[in-house]
């Protein structure tokens, strides 16, 4: 069955609203309304696997800095962001923490580590 899905391209300020025709939920038949090659490539990738880097904060056991900023070192599927946030809400970290230190390895088995994006001294 053919279906049409709209995906907005973010490659340049034009923000073309691309129309992707798909067959059987997964096969891309055609992409319309993009104005450049980059855009076409982006929307197909976004359709097949819409991924995002998750950035957030983690509660610390430190007195002076209550939060540690963190991110996933690889993008994860956008539908799993809230699940990850749920997991993160239960994590507590103590100083010292180095920049880039792994806080949670392979978070929720999604293939990405949650790493620190700042140092946490005492």
């Amino acid at each position, binding site marked *: 069955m053919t279906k049409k899905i709209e995906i907005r391209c973010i490659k340049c300020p034009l923000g073309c609203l691309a129309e992707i025709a798909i067959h059987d939920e997964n096969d891309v038949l055609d992409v319309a309304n993009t104005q450049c090659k980059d855009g076409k490539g982006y929307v197909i990738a976004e359709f097949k696997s819409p991924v995002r880097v998750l950035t957030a*904060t983690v*509660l610390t056991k430190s007195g002076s800095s*209550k939060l540690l900023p963190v991110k996933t070192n690889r993008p994860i599927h956008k539908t799993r962001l809230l699940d990850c*946030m*749920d997991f993160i*809400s*239960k994590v507590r970290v103590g100083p010292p923490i180095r920049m880039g230190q792994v806080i949670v390895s392979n978070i929720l088995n999604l293939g990405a580590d949650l790493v620190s994006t700042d140092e946490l001294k005492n």
Partner: protein
Amino acid sequence: MSILQEPLNKSLEADVAIIGGGIVGACIARELSQYKVETVLIEKYELNAGQSRGTLGLTYWGGLGEVGSSILKSVIAPGSPLYDPESIRLRLQEKGYYMWFQRLLELDIDYKFVKNLIIATNEEELKLLDNMHKLSFEIGPFYMDHRYIERDEILEIEPAVTKDVIRGLVDSGRLTFRAFPPEMTYALVENAQQNGVEIVEDAEVTGITHNGGAQVIHTRRGDIKANFVVNAAGRFADEIARMGGHCDWKIELFKCPLIVMDKSLPRINNFTMLPPIPGRPLVLSPTNEGNTFVVAGLYTKVYDRHDLSTDRESINYAINEAHRISPSITHQGIIRSFGGLRAVNNRNPEENIIEFAPDNPKFLNCAIRLPGMAQAPGVADYVLDRLGNHGLEMVKKSDFNPYRTKIPRFRELSDFYRRQLIEKDPRYGHVVCRCETITEGEICEAIRRGARSVDSVKMRCRAGMGRCQGGFCGPRVVSILARELGIPEEQIRQKEEGTFVVPYRSKELSLRSQ
């Protein structure tokens, strides 16, 4: 219930309990503190929450300053005479005005004399000007402190005024001074506290039991026993009056918009206005800090005692009229706007009600009409007199200390005194409010003197009054309050109860509703 509403000490008893922490209650408290009279001041929210807040702080007696009073009069009591020589209120106002000077100095309150300037920019306004001048001769000495002023001189004393000005009326500037109303209240209360008066905030009065002997005031935080009760509850005066005894009058409320303009606009030096027409008056007022206040005397009746809101039409009206007086005033320059309430009693809107309840000889109602600032010390004096006549024993304290000093103002000091201040307390070197240059030392001192919310910190030391309206200093003030009061940040209030700034901790909210 937040930690700040801890229950009262069970044995709180006083000779006199004052209900209402506005300028009148504060004045009475300070006057009583000179005597060996156990006094407690009870306030529903935080000090200065009601009418004493939404006001310019112009304190005046006679002269062109009465114009403000007459504007309200024309709305709520049209047709009544401009000057009633029998008026008790006017006597209290005159007395109060002159009583202020001793207090301004003793209590270290910042004040500045201001001239009243009425300008005319067209034929119609010139006629109104002439009428006002003629009227003053009819009324007599009360009004005669002014003269005509021509264009050149107007532009000299008020350079920000419109170049269309033709001529005006100006007074000597000795009959009006400007002070910051919250500062007046806090100064009075702090001195009262220094001299033994107990202050109880966050204590809404829910009922009063009186059966012959001492009265018991029931508040949300507990009971207070008192021999005498003075009702200075402002906009709630009739509600409190009914709790204390029979009451045949009601409070009626009027609201007008006040707008604070950015300091960077050309300064207004005088209390400047066009000739006021009933229903369409507007004044520009200077503040001591450099902002201009725009006040439109569009007294609209309100039925909700908490209605301090503004609306688009009145703000637009105010700014458009203000623009006619001073062309640099536009919507872009607004940094804050709010409503100011004015209460009158419906028995006689032109007068105060200062009388004991007919069925409770120890319960004194004190519902005054504007101008509140000017009358306050006179009213307090009168109240003490009545209390004394009704059996309150009043022996003067030998150790009464009349002096109180203001919170140091880093921004106003010379470098020499700044250095001294920082050496004594390094927190005075740490600037927190960058718009107004307010230091951590001042914020901590405000808290030490009684500030419990972000708003009361602002009112006491000015942090958050600048153009960013607390955007930058807000989080820092919240964390300083939490630290100084020893309570968690999520319990810090913006103003009164139920206004937590950051009610939730990180990770406390559930994600599952998404």
